[in-house]
């Protein structure tokens, strides 16, 4: 229970960083309104079976949530660079409690992003059953686990000066290939590759919103595999990263 205060202050610190909190929520909402606005009346976007406002809502909610999870890495990189992580390591705070606080903080920001996009989506006419919203959100929370691990991995690998490109590039690449920004169409290597990316399954969460199937067994395996591999890498990076930065 000792780590409770630590977690509470971590959450508080993140919210107090207003510029970060506001911008990380406002940006995806703004882009969503710009993209979905002109397509409000498209009821079946590129034969996905989803309306444009719903598809883009989930896409940009995924983007905001991925960004929130990886921003956790940027905060870790900053704390490392000022020597705070070393200070924590010589305290009784266990690595488990440290990661729990980091992951909870990331999820808090991700959920705020999701909620903001849901509100924006509703304003564009997205209307789902209560269970639809809940199931969709539940799937996204699970789908974000690999991104939590990726954020921690980046945070312990990079400095604040070098974390920008892997973070921005990672989100752009995973977003483009996973269908976050627009539906994937056609056949071939890239649409096939998408099925093996965690970002693809985030967007697929939108199907349950309209009563469709959520994830296939393949989706569960892909997300579990990414979680396992990235968690192991993150744990390794944390163990190795005890030196002065």
């Amino acid at each position, binding site marked *: 229970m*000792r*780590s*409770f*205060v*630590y977690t509470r*202050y971590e959450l*508080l*610190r*993140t919210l*107090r*960083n207003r510029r970060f909190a506001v911008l990380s929520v406002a940006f995806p909402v703004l882009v969503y309104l710009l993209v979905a606005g002109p397509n409000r009346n498209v009821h079946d976007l590129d034969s996905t079976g989803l309306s444009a406002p719903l598809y883009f809502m989930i896409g940009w909610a995924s983007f905001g949530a991925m960004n929130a999870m990886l921003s956790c890495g940027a905060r870790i990189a900053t*704390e490392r660079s*000022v*020597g*705070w992580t*070393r*200070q924590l*390591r*010589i*305290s*009784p*705070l*266990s690595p488990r409690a440290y990661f729990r606080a980091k992951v909870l903080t990331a999820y808090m920001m991700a959920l705020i992003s999701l909620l903001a996009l849901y509100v924006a989506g509703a304003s564009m006419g997205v209307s789902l059953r209560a269970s639809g919203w809940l199931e969709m959100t539940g799937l996204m929370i699970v789908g974000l686990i690999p991104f939590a691990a990726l954020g921690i991995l980046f945070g312990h690998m990079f400095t604040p000066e070098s974390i920008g490109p892997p973070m921005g590039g990672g989100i752009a690449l995973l977003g483009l290939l996973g269908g976050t920004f627009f539906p994937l169409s056609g056949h071939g290597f890239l649409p096939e590759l998408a099925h093996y990316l965690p970002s693809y399954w985030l967007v697929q969460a939108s199907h349950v919103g309209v009563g469709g199937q959520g994830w296939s067994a393949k989706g569960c395996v892909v997300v579990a595999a990414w979680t396992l591999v990235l968690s192991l890498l993150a744990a390794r990076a944390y163990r190795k990263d*005890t*030196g*002065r930065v």
Partner: protein
Amino acid sequence: MSAGSVARGGGGPATEIQLQGLVKSFRGPDGPIRAVRGIDVRIAAGETVALLGPNGAGKSTTIDMLLGLLAPDEGSVSVFGRPPSQAIAQGAVGAMLQTGALIRDLSVRELVGMIASLYPAPLDVEEVLELTGIAAIAAQRTQKLSGGQTQRVRFAVALVSNPELLVLDEPTVAMDVEGRHAFWATMREFAARGKTILFATHYLEEADAYADRAVLMAHGAIVADGPTTEIRAMVGTRTIRATLPGTDVDALALLPGVSGAERRGEAVVLRCEDSDAAIRALLAAHPDARDIEIAAAGLEQAFLELTAE
């Protein structure tokens, strides 16, 4: 006593902290840099020990190994009979590391309170804010503090954990004079509670004034280890510099209290074991000596002499 065990009762103080045969090298541009080359230190409970040495002596590397932040290439560390990680997990160790800023977006009081919450038996937060002289800035956000204030908050963070072993790496480097006095007064009080303290410094005066014992390090090795009075006698040489043209330096070297002399243009520089005796003898023999300066030899200078032998 076997390695790693803690002897309690029966003759002599227990060895609470033990560094045994520590070796650590880093990769450098021209091959490995041997930062610490085989050191042994034992510290008893309640001792205040200064780890004294010039920059680059290996003090911080030693402290990092003591705290388990760095794995030694060879040798072992035992803190209260346990590996450092275990002692730390139990909250027995507090430290103020050499480099380190604070995390932002918390008030000073919140930050100190957050750290206190992690330890099993912390000191009262308000008391620590008072002791470290930061009660007046307790409501300020950590990112708004000056360098000296930051250093005091870092000290409060180390102190509030109320550890059995307090480790401080060059704690006063960024402090002003007033801050230093307040700092050492607090440290004395903390030591009086029977706590074990290890601090690294390159100021001989600090080691002399506040430690029971000093361990001298140079080039990654221990060159001396003993009560601070002995250490001071070893490295506490002074120099007398005076303008004195046309005298024989070999004769000056034979004056009482003088251990060596050299000429630098019109001036002579006398290295002294006893500068009081030396200055009297110098003025008696050469009343025309001018521009006289007496200075304590810098620690760096003393170390060069100690390690040259």
